Structure formats: structure tokens, C-alpha cells
């Protein structure tokens, strides 16, 4: 066994241990911190699977933004969580759940061990499409050029999630702004972080967006980083979550899918099928679409974390 294999096994055991803790922790908050750590470890696993694009997404969204969402809501629910700790499910339920889970895991493991190696692959076709787009990063090419329908629908799912979160609001507050993300009187260290980290974060976000055409990165990862920066600014109370009827906000939220659909229709009109990019122009068009997706993701994630409106439209 080489060092690398030992490292892999250790990493796998660590991931599993943290996952067990996330499920078994007595308090909500402990479980949430476990989940943040879990997301970090998972991005190491993705690096070992030769998937830096996924690792970056997992680090930014799976661990970072989801972590903030859960930490915030976990603190809000803390009292309720403690009171309910007594209501434990019965032994029989737990045993049957364990049996069912074991069965599911074993079946999945069996499938994985039975996978042919090398397995069925779409990589050669992806290679062809990559050549047609002029991009260098196959994952970005798949996302925007080849499987663009999936990506567009996923953007629409994001918009639907925003509609869902907003519609949880009580009628009184419709059209108003979500509760502030941060507390009054932020302390100096938070302001320092916001003043120095945010401009650097913008640079890193644009960089990851831009290299995403040819190297690991792209609109999703960059959008998540920019979203995180906006959230830090809101936590420092330098800016507040915008009201849900703000026109600019709504434009930003739909810009990505809208531009995507327009580009698809243009392809239909010009080259004969939905999402056909004309030869030679694929790369600029893809980057154009991605820029709007970046905007939409950077706007959507903080809006989802901020939650439904909690303050009336006119204060």
C-alpha cells in the first residue's frame, strides 16, 4: 500500500466519522458544525477524484454558503431543538431504519463494485463538443454548450426556490425586505474583514469566472464566491437585504435564465436548433451567457439565505 492509498483511506474514514457525528450529535448546532467540516473534507475527496471544478463548488456552496444558512437557522432554532431532544423515536423504528439504510448502502456499494472499468463514457463526445466551442475546460463546455438545457432548467429551479422562499412570508410583509442578516453595531474585526476581504473576493471571483473557460472554475463557483462577499457586507450591516419588490434585484435574479433562453432561441432562429451556437462565435456567446449566470447566482444565493421578507414595505 502506497502512502497515497493510506491517505485516501484515512480521508475516507475521516469523512465517514464526521458524517456519523452530523447524524448522531445531540445538539443541532454541533451537527451543523460537523456538516461544515464535512463539506471541507469532501472537497479534498473531490480533488482526489480529479474533479477540481466540483471541489470548488463544494467548498463554496456545499460548505460555505450552506454552512452559513444552517448556522444562522440552527441558532434561531436552538431553544426549540433542545426542548425536542426528549422525543426520541422508538427502538423498533430505529432498528428498522438502520436495516433499511444498511440495505440501501449495501445495494449501492454492490453496484459500485460491479461497475465496469473502464466504464461507459461520454468523454469522447465531450471532446468533440469542446473542440467546437473553443473552450478549454470540458466541464464548462458541458454545462453551457452541450447540456445547456440542464443548466438552464437548473437556473429556473433557483428562481423557483426564490419564489418559494419569498412566498413563505406573512402577507403583512409582502414587498418588504428580509430581516437584516447581521446584528446592530458590528465590531471592528468584522468591519476590517468586510473592508479588506470583499474587494479581494471580487478579484478572486472574477478570476475564477474568467479561468473557468479553460481551467477549473466557472460561473457557478465564481457566483458563489461573489455571493459570499455580498453576504459578508450584509452581515457587517453596510448594506441591507434588498426588498423583494426591488426591480433591480428581480432583474438580477432572472437575468441568467432570461439571457440563456434568448441565446437558445437565437440559435433556433439562426442555426436551426435550440442552443445552436454559430461557428466561430461559440466562445464569446458562452462567456456572455456565463456573465449573466454569474450575476444571477451571486444575487440568488444571498437572497435565499436572507429568507422571506420580514419587514413591511414602508417602515
Amino acid at each position: 500500500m502506497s502512502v497515497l492509498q493510506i491517505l485516501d483511506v484515512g480521508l475516507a474514514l475521516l469523512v465517514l466519522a464526521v458524517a456519523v457525528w452530523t447524524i448522531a450529535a445531540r445538539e443541532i448546532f454541533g451537527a451543523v458544525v460537523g456538516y461544515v467540516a464535512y463539506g471541507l473534507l469532501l472537497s479534498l475527496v473531490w480533488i482526489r477524484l480529479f474533479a477540481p471544478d466540483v471541489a470548488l463548488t463544494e467548498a463554496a456552496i456545499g460548505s460555505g454558503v450552506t454552512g452559513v444558512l444552517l448556522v444562522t437557522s440552527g441558532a434561531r432554532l436552538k431553544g426549540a431543538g433542545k426542548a425536542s431532544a426528549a422525543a426520541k423515536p422508538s427502538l423498533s423504528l430505529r432498528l428498522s431504519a438502520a436495516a433499511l439504510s444498511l440495505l440501501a448502502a449495501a445495494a449501492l456499494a454492490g453496484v459500485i463494485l460491479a461497475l465496469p472499468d473502464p466504464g461507459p463514457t461520454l468523454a469522447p463526445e465531450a471532446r468533440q463538443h469542446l473542440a467546437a466551442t473553443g473552450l478549454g475546460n470540458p466541464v464548462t463546455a458541458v454545462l453551457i454548450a452541450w447540456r445547456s438545457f440542464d443548466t438552464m432548467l437548473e437556473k429556473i429551479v433557483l428562481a423557483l426556490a426564490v419564489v418559494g422562499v419569498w412566498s413563505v412570508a406573512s402577507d403583512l410583509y409582502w414587498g418588504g425586505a428580509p430581516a437584516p442578516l447581521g446584528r446592530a453595531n458590528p465590531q471592528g474585526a468584522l468591519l476590517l474583514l468586510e473592508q479588506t476581504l470583499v474587494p479581494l473576493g471580487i478579484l478572486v471571483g472574477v478570476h475564477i469566472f474568467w479561468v473557468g473557460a479553460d481551467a477549473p472554475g466557472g460561473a457557478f463557483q465564481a457566483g458563489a464566491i461573489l455571493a459570499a462577499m455580498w453576504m459578508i457586507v450584509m452581515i457587517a450591516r453596510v448594506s441591507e437585504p434588498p426588498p423583494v419588490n426591488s426591480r433591480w434585484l428581480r432583474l438580477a435574479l432572472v437575468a441568467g435564465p432570461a439571457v440563456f433562453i434568448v441565446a437558445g432561441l437565437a440559435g433556433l432562429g439562426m442555426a436551426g436548433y435550440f442552443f445552436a451556437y454559430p461557428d466561430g462565435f461559440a466562445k464569446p456567446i458562452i462567456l456572455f451567457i456565463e456573465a449573466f449566470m454569474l450575476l444571477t447566482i451571486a444575487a440568488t444565493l444571498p437572497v435565499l439565505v436572507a429568507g422571506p421578507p420580514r419587514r413591511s414595505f414602508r417602515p
Partner: protein
Amino acid sequence: MSVALDLFSIVAIAAGAFFFFAGSVGLLRFPDSLTRLHALSKADNLGLGLVVLGLLPRVASLLDALKLVAIWALVLLSGAASAQLIGRALRRRGGDE
């Protein structure tokens, strides 16, 4: 030359790993939350700094070296700020558990 550079890498990275170890030990052994915060914020930043230092001779270009240093600087900034943030939260709660 390359042997010397390798030796330098090994020494620096080993030292970095040592400080991570010390930080973890401190986190586990120190008696109250605020002293544990010291262990965290001082040892692991230095550990990462030494690991970055050790990796510098191994990078392909100056660009990669600058990026490594940028990563360290960002962690340093985040670490310094979050140590103060957590410290004040602990103080506010009287949180010397």
C-alpha cells in the same frame, strides 16, 4: 542545489506540520475557550505559513509562488479577524467554560 532546496522544503513543511500538531494539542489540552482560541489562531497560521514556504521552491513559476503567498495572506487575515470575533463572543457570554 536541488538537494539543498529539497532539504529546505522538508524542514519547512515538517516544521509547519509540527505547528499544526501543537495547535491541535493546544485546542485539546488548554483549559478554557479563550486560551484554546490562542492555540488556534497562533499555531495554525504559522503552520500554514511554513507549509507554503516549504512549497515555494517546488512551484513551476513565479506566478504559482505568488498565488501560494496570496492564499496564506488571506488565511492570515481571516484567522486574525475571526479569532477576535470569537474572542468577543466568548467574552460577551462570560464563556469560560
